[in-house]
């Protein structure tokens, strides 16, 4: 917990994202359920931060609070040094499901997101076409989303987030529904694109390896009500490669986080039991 206090000391305005003791409850009276329990974290400019946490701990809820879709019960969201609590439109987002409009072609889906974010229509068209070519999906530009495989849909969904002009990207389990091999391919692909243009990224994942492989910093969440259990700087150089998966530092950190997640989940079960 003292590590989160560390984070609190950073100067406002210099961070891409600051989540200041945000809590969020759903329901009323007896059905009241606290999902986020006063959670604080930051993402620096150009920093890649990952969040790992048990399923159902409130990671998607956290993203919805950051994105302004849900208002926090208490606490504040600051984006680029400005108060953004409850405001939408400040982030680019890749949702847990690829969420492409089925009646728009792949290219027009991307264009829509870009124009909503304020890009000029021609500019959006040009950049969508160019990037679809770069990621090898140009032949699908005029196809409807249902024609694409799950992995392709995820790539389009990622591209949509990448090309949006907002500086902060939220990625909610971008590769959650993919098989291990495709997943690794996609991780390397994401990494290569990110290392080119270093956006500020907050990524949610279930995979500890994925978090370590991709990010500068890993934040471990507790079971709900979620708080930050601990944060770890990832001591791996960039550009990263698969070879690093066997480095002692990587393995040790992976073990650490794994244990933390297990005890974190255990603590919650006891607490839940005591409440009854």
């Amino acid at each position, binding site marked *: 917990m003292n590590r989160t206090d560390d984070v609190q000391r950073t100067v406002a305005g210099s961070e891409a994202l600051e989540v200041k003791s945000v809590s969020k409850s759903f329901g009323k009276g007896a059905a009241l359920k606290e999902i986020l329990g006063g959670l604080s974290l930051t993402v620096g400019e150009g920093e890649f931060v990952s969040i790992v946490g048990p399923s159902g701990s409130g990671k998607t809820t956290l*993203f*919805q609070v950051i*994105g*302004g*879709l849900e208002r926090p019960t208490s606490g504040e969201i600051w984006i680029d040094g400005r108060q953004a609590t409850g405001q*939408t*439109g*400040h*982030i*680019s*987002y890749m*949702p847990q*499901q690829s*969420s492409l*409009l*089925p*009646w*728009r*072609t792949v290219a027009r889906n991307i264009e*829509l*997101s870009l124009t*909503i*974010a304020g890009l000029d229509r021609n500019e959006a068209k040009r950049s969508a076409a160019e990037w679809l070519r770069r990621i090898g999906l140009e032949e699908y530009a005029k196809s*409807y989303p*249902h024609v694409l495989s799950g992995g392709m849909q995820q790539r389009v969904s990622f591209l949509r987030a990448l090309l*949006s002009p*907002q500086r902060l990207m939220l990625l909610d389990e971008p590769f959650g529904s993919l098989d291990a091999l495709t997943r690794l391919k996609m991780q390397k692909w994401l990494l290569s694109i990110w290392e080119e243009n270093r956006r500020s990224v907050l990524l949610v994942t279930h995979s500890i390896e994925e978090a370590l492989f991709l990010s500068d910093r890993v934040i471990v969440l507790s079971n709900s009500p979620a708080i930050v259990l601990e944060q770890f700087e990832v001591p791996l150089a960039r550009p990263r490669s698969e070879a690093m998966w066997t480095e002692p530092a990587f393995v040790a950190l992976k073990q650490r986080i794994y244990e933390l997640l297990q005890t974190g989940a255990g603590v919650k079960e006891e607490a839940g039991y005591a409440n009854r």
Partner: protein
Amino acid sequence: MGNKTGVWAKVWPPVIVVVALLACWQGATMWGQVDSWHLPSPASIVQEAASANVWPRLMEHTGATLRLTLLGFAGGSAAGFLLAALLHLAPGLRAAVYPLLVVSQNVPIVVIGPLLTMWLGYGLLPKVLLVMMVCFFPISVAMLGGLTNTDAQLRNYLQMIGTGKWQLFWRLELPHAIIHLFSGLKLAASYSVLSAIVAEWLGTNKGLGYFMQLSAKGFMPERVFASVFIIVALSLSLFGLMTLAEKLLMRWRPAKKEGN
């Protein structure tokens, strides 16, 4: 997208059944115990309809019915569409009006016909209004359903990246509602022909509804049946037209294995 052979494979079996039924009918009237003034044979119906004396009149009445049907259908659809959009964008109004809309669906609209005639006379207007009212409900209800039941994931995504209320309406809710709209349009297409005929019974001197009544009173069953055939053909064509429009507009949809 069904290719040519796929379409034919679907069309053939019912066509064969229809042809077989017509043949049985013809056979029954030729060799059976059916009086021709009860049930004329298909051949004699066609012969009567095609005769120089009847055909032009039949076409004139068909034209009148078609005009009434299309005016009512278009007007009713437009009104239903607009009301649905209005109720959707003004939730307060919706809460007040929607229950009434649903309840009123159970009122047989044709009973209002005599009232309309009483208030508005025997012209085109009361009849168009009647057809409009019949088409209006299925369309507004289908459309409202479509506007409301949009995918929550898509909605969340669009809202988080900053989509405003109007953009959400144009980009998500309306396109989604169009899918549902077509089930309403197909229903209304069939209703509209039927209600146009009923409207013509209420008093006029043109239209197939009028021609049918006239022929029935004059004991000319061939002409009644000829009218019936044309009415069925009109109804089917309008339905087919809607199905075609749906196919064209919904080309983005994954191809379905079976059904329409």
